[in-house]
């Protein structure tokens, strides 16, 4: 899909996407868990 772009550009995009995913998926998950913990629901987020 990205084969036609130069390697450096491709890697930059992949790297930014990976960092964004770490924040959006893992960071947000831990954030929700931590807020839930603050309001007395335990570290486990609402979904589990």
């Amino acid at each position, binding site marked *: *899909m990205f084969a036609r772009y130069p390697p450096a550009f491709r*890697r930059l995009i992949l790297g930014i996407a*990976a960092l964004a*995913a*770490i924040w959006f*998926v893992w960071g947000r998950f831990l954030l929700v868990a931590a807020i839930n913990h603050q309001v007395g*629901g*335990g570290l*486990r987020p609402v*979904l589990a």
Partner: protein
Amino acid sequence: MAEIPEHEGRVSDWASEDGPPPRTSRSGSNIRPQALTAARFARGGSLYLETFLRDPIPAQAAAYLYPPAFAQLLAPLTGLPARVACAAFAVLSLAIFVVTTWKCAQAGGARGGVDLALGTALLLAAAFPVAFAVIFGNVEALLVAAITVALVARPSRGGLALALAVVLKVAPFALVPALASRSRLGLLAFCLALLAVVVVGIVLAPETWVAFPSILAHLAASGSDYAQNFAPAAVVATLAGPTAGSIVRIITLAVAGALVLLSALLARRPGGWPAALFAATFASLLVPATLWLHYPAILLPFIAFAWPRASTRTRLGIVYSLLFFDFWDMAAGVIGAVGLVLLGAVLLRSLWPVTGPPIVNDPTGTLQ
């Protein structure tokens, strides 16, 4: 059930105390009660809560519900402080996800190097079920290790790996017909390894192995109507009532049965093994009445394997399906169910063995 206090300190110190087996607190990881129970079990204590042998077990019961062998496997963690044991299991899980994703992508045709490293990082970061399984310490990483070996290694090693999977969790038994259909040696390795684990387990703690079928029966008898449960039947039951839920449950089991049959047929076709193993793995997700958001993490090896040769449309389909899981906090059950069905369809189509004449690269026509 009386509330059992949370315990700090070394796992094995607490495990020597009298009283019922531990259950998790809301602040703990899922591996914590498992490790505590393992330590207690190693000292001759009971593995399962006594009430679990008498009454239906709530599907979200935070206590030991796995087959007995998992408790024995956790023994190395029990000498550590509880927090360190949880962290060690999370690190181990993450390492397994990284190595297996890398290996599966290579087996699927990816070249190593920076692109593969970044691709692995992106897939693992973007897949919410992986985050869930790692952060809360579930068995998915160990299952992924077994599935990866079954996918990329020779059948005898695959048989040994699947024996490990079925002593951790019962659902991976759905993978055995495909293994048996592919190779008798693989089936033999599976049976011998399973027999060895079960015989040693029964010699060490016979009453626990006798109790386990009763645990399974009581677990099956319990309700599964949780908002976060995204088993299709549970989602439909929430939306349209219990009758519709029961009908969908029967359909889901029929689909799972058809997928297991399909896996046995695909395993005999040339190049059909990845699709066969995927169909069986997907069936193992449909069999239990509950499906939590960490369960689809066992599909990661197939995503990594399919990705290098997948068309742009397939890749977009995979990304789109994974995004459904990432929005778990909007409407966990419905979203998860839609994402799972989409991901299953995209991956099965992508891994399906291509039939046709062999491709001969002969531009000059010298072979004709």
